[in-house]
């Protein structure tokens, strides 16, 4: 089983609801509270698992604003696991989720150096590295209704831009949508084989410019419509 997320860049509007939901869910849970640094002062900052970065692709008038929610990609060849000296960083065999054992981490930052996506952050209060857990404490929780056993960010997305599922199952939602829409991995040349996929924006033809003078028939029709309406 290879669990992961698919994020639809065509649909994401950059509302940051997934970031807020992640922060809220992780107020408790396996990794404990995500620390805020000076939240009510001038430069509020904090530990976040999910960050949305916004890019402009292309030049005006052929440009598009694309919003990139980025959390841990749960890579197949996760180098954050390879380089961890204490063994705190590990990848589960049963579902491929990469986790940080908070009891073993010594906060050396080596895994953050190894992660190209910036998924891991040091929590200065706890002194350990924290990252997206793929809501492992949620997806297996039998006390929740089956439809709630998904990551918090997937459930909360108002535009349904996030999908969660098993990439090893060719008939799952995530596998189908990656195939149909041509899902892409980020920075594949590094060889980390990220599990999370991003669906590119659909190719949309630009709206036709009205640069032709209306024909006589159109102008007469326009005049008749105006007279009738008034």
């Amino acid at each position, binding site marked *: 089983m290879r669990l992961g997320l698919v994020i639809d860049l065509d649909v994401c509007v950059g509302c940051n609801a997934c970031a807020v939901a992640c922060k809220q869910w992780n107020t408790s849970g396996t990794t404990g509270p995500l620390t805020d640094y000076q939240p009510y002062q001038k430069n509020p900052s904090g530990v976040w698992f999910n960050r949305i970065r916004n890019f402009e692709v292309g030049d005006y008038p052929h440009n598009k604003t694309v919003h990139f929610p980025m959390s841990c990609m749960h890579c197949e060849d996760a180098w954050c696991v390879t380089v961890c000296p204490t063994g705190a960083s590990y990848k589960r065999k049963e579902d491929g989720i990469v986790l940080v054992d908070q009891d073993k981490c010594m906060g050396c*930052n080596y895994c953050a150096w190894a992660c190209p996506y910036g998924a891991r952050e040091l929590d200065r209060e706890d002194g350990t590295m924290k990252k997206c857990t793929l809501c492992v404490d949620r997806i297996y929780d039998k006390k929740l209704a089956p439809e709630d056993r998904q990551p918090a960010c997937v459930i909360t997305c108002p535009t349904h831009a996030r999908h969660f599922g098993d990439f090893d199952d060719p008939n799952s939602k995530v596998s189908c949508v990656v195939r149909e829409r041509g899902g892409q991995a980020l920075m594949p040349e590094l060889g980390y084989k990220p599990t999370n996929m991003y669906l590119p924006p659909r190719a949309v033809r630009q709206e036709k410019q009205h640069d032709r003078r209306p024909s006589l028939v159109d102008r007469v029709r326009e005049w008749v419509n105006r007279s009738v309406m008034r």
Partner: protein
Amino acid sequence: MHPAISVIFFTVASGAGYGLIALLALSSLITIDAMPTRGVVLSGGIAALCAITAGFVSSTFHLANPRNAWRAMSRFRTSWLAREGLLAVLFYPIAALWLLRWWLGYDDSVITQALAVLTVLWAMATVFSTGMIYACLRTIPQWNTSLTPANYLLLGLMLGSLALTSLRLYWGEPVSRMLVVNIGFLATAGIMKFLYFFWVGTPSGPTVNTATSFNRATVRLFDVGHSAGTFLTQEFGYQPPMPRIRVLRMTVYVLGFIVPAVLVAMGGEFNELMVAALISLAGVFVERWLFFAEARHVVTLYHGRQQV
């Protein structure tokens, strides 16, 4: 990349210490000028071990949760940091045994010589592992070359050779061949450092296009998503301006290699060698600072950079 003073001090001090003790052990095996005396070996060995220990203590200041630092050797099968920790810890008994045999007067025996060989190889393996900690990361293209462990080894040996020559002069031993060895290490390390600066100058790694999977158009960061800094910008966002980098590179060449080489070539008095060793040490500190400051992590592609 934010240069952490604790890590800089750790790599420079431990590199110099391993270089000193490796060359000391080597000079007890193959006679350079003369067989070193008991005073040189013991004082040099203890000084080297002190430098190495100071380096390791300094490296623990970099940890946010040092309570778990004892676990840092457990993943030696995959992690170069774990390998380095393990090699460093196991080096102490080897070096201590070798020094003990010299203390007790068994400097001629085969066992002592075998321990000397092991000391040399183990010290070099440890410095190599230190370099590989940085070189194995594909996320920092500047470090991901063979020049990184090469420079760690050569700079450690260079500092060690200067320290050894000063020490032998202090104890009144002949050093004519050691001076040549010093010039050799200074020249080689200087050339390798130049090659490194040449190699990492131009960004040639991943671009923001591959980072966002949009390869067909120009991609620009529009909004990074946070109004204040984050752990990522703090750790990886530091980039000194190019004029300052150029000045610091010149400083590395002058302090690290040129001035010490001139001092060594001037004849070989203890005062000159000592000053050369200290100036070279200062130059290597600047070099290590630049090594971290010039590094560009690929995560900066998500924070405004076009190419690393």
